[in-house]
């Protein structure tokens, strides 16, 4: 799709979030870098378009520096976009201010990557969870019950005993459940989870992921799950968007992407994932070794300098996302 007509998308009730040609460029500066003629503008997100239907779980998959976290922050207005449009419930979020912003905040929430950093160490769990309630002007007497309900929702055993505890007295898994409870306490429609389990031990991760899946289904949430780990994305999302150097390479059902990756980068990504059984293939990855430099990406397709199938056209022309079977792929091979 070469970019939907603006008004057509915003009217469709089933679309909760519509992103069209979103850009986030910022100047990193650095006098000495500038002196050597190196560009100092980082294109964290460079022309990304996708839509998310209500109740859909979408994985934002990519390596560090691919722009997935920036994209998540743009969706929640934690970062102001420098181009394109983002619609939430049919309304462009760029202009939202004051009470409109407060309403948006209650509808769109974030689950943080590092639970140990996401809660103020001086606040008790009760104070942490009552902050969103205060902002939504929930009367004082109702808050205790809603806090307990939120903690039960995230399966924290006997929540009452946690209320007066400080964050350093909880384990990683428990803290992440409190972070989730805080995000869900105002019954949002839309949740962005930024690598929610990457800081947790493997044996604890599964528990937190199961809670996330259970809560998402129970509240009918629309969710974005940001991760560099394809196996985790597959466990949580039915659709995945693969990002590289600020752009979307491939977008489609997760199972199809895992079974039959189309974009050369996705192929390398899927092949690279080590699986816990000893007799997996050891043949070298179909990808060049260069490290992506966000400050000066290659011309045309940003992946061409590492792509085994790169040809002349890839350098000349940026590949537009094209429908290929169940997927949308941005590559001249199709």
């Amino acid at each position, binding site marked *: 799709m070469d970019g939907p007509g603006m008004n057509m998308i915003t009217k469709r009730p089933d679309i909760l979030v519509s992103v069209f040609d979103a850009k986030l460029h910022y100047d990193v500066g650095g006098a000495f870098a500038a*002196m050597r003629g190196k560009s100092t503008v980082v294109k964290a997100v460079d022309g990304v378009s996708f839509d998310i239907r209500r109740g859909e779980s979408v994985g934002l998959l990519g390596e560090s520096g691919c722009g997935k976290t920036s994209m998540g922050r743009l969706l929640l207005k934690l970062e102001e976009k420098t181009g394109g449009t983002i619609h939430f419930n049919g309304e462009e979020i760029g202009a939202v201010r004051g009470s409109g912003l407060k309403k948006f905040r209650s509808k769109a929430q974030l689950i943080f990557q590092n639970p140990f950093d996401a809660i103020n160490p001086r606040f008790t769990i009760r104070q942490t969870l009552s902050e969103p309630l205060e902002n939504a002007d929930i009367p004082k007497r109702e808050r205790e019950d809603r806090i307990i309900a939120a903690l039960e929702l995230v399966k924290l055993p006997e929540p009452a005993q946690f209320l007066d505890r400080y964050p350093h007295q909880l384990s990683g898994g428990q803290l992440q459940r409190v972070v989730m409870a805080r995000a869900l306490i105002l019954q949002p429609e839309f949740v962005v989870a930024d690598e929610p389990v990457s800081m947790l031990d493997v044996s604890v991760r599964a528990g937190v992921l199961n809670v996330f899946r259970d809560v998402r289904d129970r509240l009918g949430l629309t969710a974005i799950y940001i991760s560099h780990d394809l196996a985790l994305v597959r466990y949580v999302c039915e659709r995945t968007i693969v990002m590289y150097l600020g752009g979307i390479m491939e977008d489609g059902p997760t199972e199809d992407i895992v079974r039959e990756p189309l974009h050369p980068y996705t192929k390398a990504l899927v092949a690279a994932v080590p699986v816990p059984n000893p007799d997996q293939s050891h043949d070298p990855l179909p990808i060049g070794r260069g490290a992506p430099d966000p400050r000066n990406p290659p011309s045309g397709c940003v992946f061409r300098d590492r792509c085994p199938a790169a040809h002349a056209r890839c350098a000349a022309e940026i590949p537009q996302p094209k429908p290929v079977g169940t997927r949308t792929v941005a590559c001249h091979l199709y």
Partner: protein
Amino acid sequence: MKNFKAVGGRLLQLALVLWAVVTILFLMFRLMPGNPMAAYIDPTFTLEQQQQLMAQFGLDKPLWQQYLIYLGNLLQGELGQSFRYREPVGQRIWILLPNTLILTFSSLIVAYVFGILAGAYLAWRRGSWVEQAAIPLVLTTRAMPEFWLGMVMLAIFSFSLGWLPAGGTRAPGAEYSGFLDLYTSRDFLAHLALPAATLAIYSQGLPLLLMRSNMLDVMKEDFVTMARIKGLSNWTVVVRHAARNALLPVMTSFAIAVGYQLQGNVVVESVFSWPGLGRELVNAVAASDYPLAQGAFLMIALVVIFMNLLADLLYAFLDPRISHA
């Protein structure tokens, strides 16, 4: 060498600071109550004579016009006439500046060499009784009024023991042929010893504490542990790796310390009657000789601002993470 076009931002910032300080200086000296030349107008002067004197110093024009003249003169290095000495301020400043700089740099170099070595040693002997004793001692040197320390040093070494002269830069009547001859003569050094020692004792605390704290931080870094795992000798690990990294911020603090030291000079020069910019400023202000005071203040401010800039550049060049961005 790399071109510095990109460092323009920093130079622009410098120009702004310079302009602001110069303007503040101008306003300060013009906003005072009464007539700036009151102290120099003989009551017997007639009105015209007073007007004529004022005109000579350009004080009869409206403020903004004086400001423009003031800026114009400044750009040509013209600092106006001293009320008291009736001679160009610039000339006097130029003679006194070397004295102040020599006092500042000699004391600071001694302070930094001692501070760095002692700081590194204390970091290496972390937790020992040596450190327990040294830190409070260093703290008291930071808590000490410099002029009081000067007085005590004077009383002991000059008056009680009589080893060193009590002030000034050279014995009365001693003649010196050249510039270099003066500044390296035994007589000058004897005069320099006490004031420089006073300033050095006061300012060694900064590099010492900074070096010690940096060393402690760096010793925790992974690359220091790796150096030990590589089996490198203790000397190599502590000096070549830990000290070399810890030294970085200490070197840049030297430039800023010069700025702070200049302020300390004001009192120390007065105690030792050392003919420098600090003492000149004090005497000029006491005598309400505002152009001279303004010139002395400006020169001190220029050196401070230049040193702040030097600190930034020094930091960028010393740290490869910035110079090889």
